[in-house]
């Protein structure tokens, strides 16, 4: 571990230095720079930044492990978190870019000619972003405490200082270019071990192909083998799920529409030059995301198979014993010693073994084990990605790179969220609602102040929420709320000219209140799935409520006065790129 500690410090210090360097180089000089990086980021670069912005600590560390345990049930994350980009590209991003403002509440406030609508959108934005950022800061704390032996709170503190430097100094411009660097660190750290694991399990160097190949040196496909092994231990088959089709459908929907409605993702498309660039940018973002997201199910399946092969029925070696001597003795007796990587990672608490039957052997079993043996092993979701380099017997520096990658994933998402929080406060709340005569220079100062306070609040939230321990549950909030409150209002604002102020206020309020109450009720009050509405879990409820919110918005609009003519003209303008300019030119020509 000595060697490994060195490499972990090396990569963490190196990457943090890089991020700060970029921040100093890309300082923001105006509110335009600070909010939208001057509207001048190249579509491919923005795609890469969007991918880093989007893929959080959860995507990087937990998703493959989650899929390893859920099997087919994990597909909801894969389809949901990528399919949302199709909705963004086709329904929202280019039109919002054509509208040409700074923030999501900006669009809502102007399109619905209403300060009330703007303030409700600010509330939705802040709620979604703070929910999301708590998990990121917690991830930073875990990475520092688990790998560098730094106390959890200190870890969060270091993360806060780094994000503070580049978000407060550089604004969106600094965040964009650090996110590009963070994407490169992240994808390298993820794919290198995946390639080696794929080679070990299937003999194919490309994980996506290994996923559909045979087990190395055997005539059975990797997935068939996995099904055979897990059902033999009493788990459900890997390619099946215990969830109902309807629930799988609803969760996928909530994640897709939630993705499309997340403010920190939408604003990334405000940083490019035109509607056309916004479309290409969404395509590039999905390419960069797909690189990780098509690797993840392969990593999940390989890791599950490898975990069972190497750890199940292995003989445990206590911490005090000489590992090499004990392992040799176990092998001599025809047994299988606990692998070295297991002993290394056991210290982090991500793996635990309880010898229930007292035979010294580590039995890993599902709920319906045919041999009736009780399960003695509890691996956490995060262990599979983190332990991959060692399982694949890669050198110590790859582990250091993984830690830097996990931190990059958490910090890049946290920074994107901070930008959204600060602009919602400084631009929408202060300049557009409370102090309308504020000038650009003051607004930039307020934006920096808001970003600084948001960093502080997020850090406290990270510490506080991890003590309460329900971060995983509240993530459903972010997606459900984004799907049911922001997505319908933005979508109808572009595609339905008749949508008016009253409809938008009703639709957002319905989505916010209904989703909030449902999730709180079924996550904290009544935990019985039998009482779910139509059998849809709190994770998936954003989807039916998104549809409900569309209906409410349209019904209320039809019952009230249509929006003023100039608003309808604005909608025409954002649908047709360059129309405003073209019309102006046409009039010049026809003028006498």
């Amino acid at each position, binding site marked *: 571990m000595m060697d490994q500690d060195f490499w972990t410090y090396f990569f963490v210090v190196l990457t943090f230095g890089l991020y700060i360097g970029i921040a100093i180089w890309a300082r923001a000089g105006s509110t335009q720079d600070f909010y939208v990086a001057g509207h001048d980021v190249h579509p491919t670069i923005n795609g890469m930044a969007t991918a880093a912005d989007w893929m959080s600590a959860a995507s990087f560390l937990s998703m493959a492990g989650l*899929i390893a345990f859920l099997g*087919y049930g*994990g*597909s909801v994350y*894969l*389809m949901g978190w*990528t*399919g949302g*980009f*199709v*909705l963004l*590209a*086709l*329904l929202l991003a*280019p039109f919002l870019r054509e509208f040409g403002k700074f923030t999501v509440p900006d669009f809502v406030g102007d399109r619905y000619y209403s300060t009330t609508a703007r303030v409700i959108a600010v509330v939705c934005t802040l709620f979604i972003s703070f929910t999301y950022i708590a998990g990121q800061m917690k991830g930073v704390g875990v990475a520092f405490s688990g790998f560098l032996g730094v106390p959890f709170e200190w870890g969060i503190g270091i993360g806060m200082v780094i994000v503070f430097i580049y978000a407060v100094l550089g604004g969106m411009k600094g965040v964009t270019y650090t996110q590009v660097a963070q994407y490169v660190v992240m994808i390298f750290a993820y794919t290198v071990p995946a390639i080696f694991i794929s080679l070990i399990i299937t003999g194919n160097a490309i994980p*996506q*192909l290994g*996923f*559909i*190949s*045979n087990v190395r040196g055997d005539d059975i*496909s*990797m*997935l*068939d083998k996995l099904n055979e092994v897990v059902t033999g231990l009493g788990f459900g088959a890997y*390619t099946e799920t215990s969830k109902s*089709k309807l629930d*799988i*459908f609803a969760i*996928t*929907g909530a994640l*897709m529409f939630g993705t499309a409605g997340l403010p920190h993702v939408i604003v990334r498309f405000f940083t490019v030059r035109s509607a*056309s660039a916004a*479309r*290409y940018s*969404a*395509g590039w973002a*999905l*390419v960069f995301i*797909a690189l990780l*997201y*098509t690797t993840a*199910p392969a990593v999940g399946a390989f890791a599950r198979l490898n975990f069972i092969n190497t750890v199940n029925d292995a003989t445990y070696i206590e911490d005090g014993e000489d590992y090499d001597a004990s392992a040799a003795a176990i092998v001599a007796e025809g047994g299988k010693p606990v692998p070295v990587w297991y002993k290394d990672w056991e210290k982090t608490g991500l793996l635990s073994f309880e010898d229930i039957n007292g035979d010294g052997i580590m039995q890993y079993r599902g709920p319906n084990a045919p041999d009736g043996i009780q399960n003695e092993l509890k691996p956490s979701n995060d262990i599979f990605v983190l332990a991959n380099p060692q399982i694949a017997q890669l050198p110590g520096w790859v582990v250091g790179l993984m830690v830097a990658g996990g931190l990059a994933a958490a910090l890049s998402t946290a920074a994107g969220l901070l930008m959204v929080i600060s602009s919602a406060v400084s631009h929408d709340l202060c300049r557009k609602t409370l102090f309308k005569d504020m000038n650009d220079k003051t607004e930039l100062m307020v934006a920096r102040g808001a970003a600084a306070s948001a960093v502080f609040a997020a850090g406290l939230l990270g510490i506080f929420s991890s003590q309460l321990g329900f971060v995983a549950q509240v993530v459903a909030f972010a997606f459900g709320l984004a799907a049911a409150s922001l997505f319908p209002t933005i979508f109808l604002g572009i595609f339905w000219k008749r949508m008016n102020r009253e409809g938008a206020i009703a639709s957002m309020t319905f989505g916010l209140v209904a989703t909030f109450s449902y999730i709180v009720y079924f996550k904290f009050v009544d935990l019985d799935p039998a009482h779910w509405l139509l059998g849809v879990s709190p994770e998936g409820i954003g989807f039916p409520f998104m549809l409900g919110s569309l209906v409410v918005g349209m019904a209320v609009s039809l019952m009230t006065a249509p929006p003023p003519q100039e608003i309808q003209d604005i909608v*025409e303008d954002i*649908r*047709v*790129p*360059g*129309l405003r*300019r*073209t*019309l102006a030119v*046409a009039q010049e*020509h*026809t003028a006498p």
Partner: protein
Amino acid sequence: MQDKTEIDGKGYWRAVLRLTLSLLAIWFLVSYGAGILFRDFLDQMNIGGAPLGFWFAQNGAIYVFVALIFYYCWAMGRLERKFGLKG
């Protein structure tokens, strides 16, 4: 008063909606369709060593999503040129 130099915004928007709807139909078919609703039927077939429906849910749908967005970019560029909106 219709001016000849004025662009056909309505025709353009109709074409955009047609394109968007057909692409969303494919988007729905590969994810909710192949990956969830018709999965059991598709699983009778295999792609390599993976059941087809399962593969669509975990890998295939994502590839199609990427292709959809780039096709959309290309098709929108063509529409903009056709209606004289480029510039």
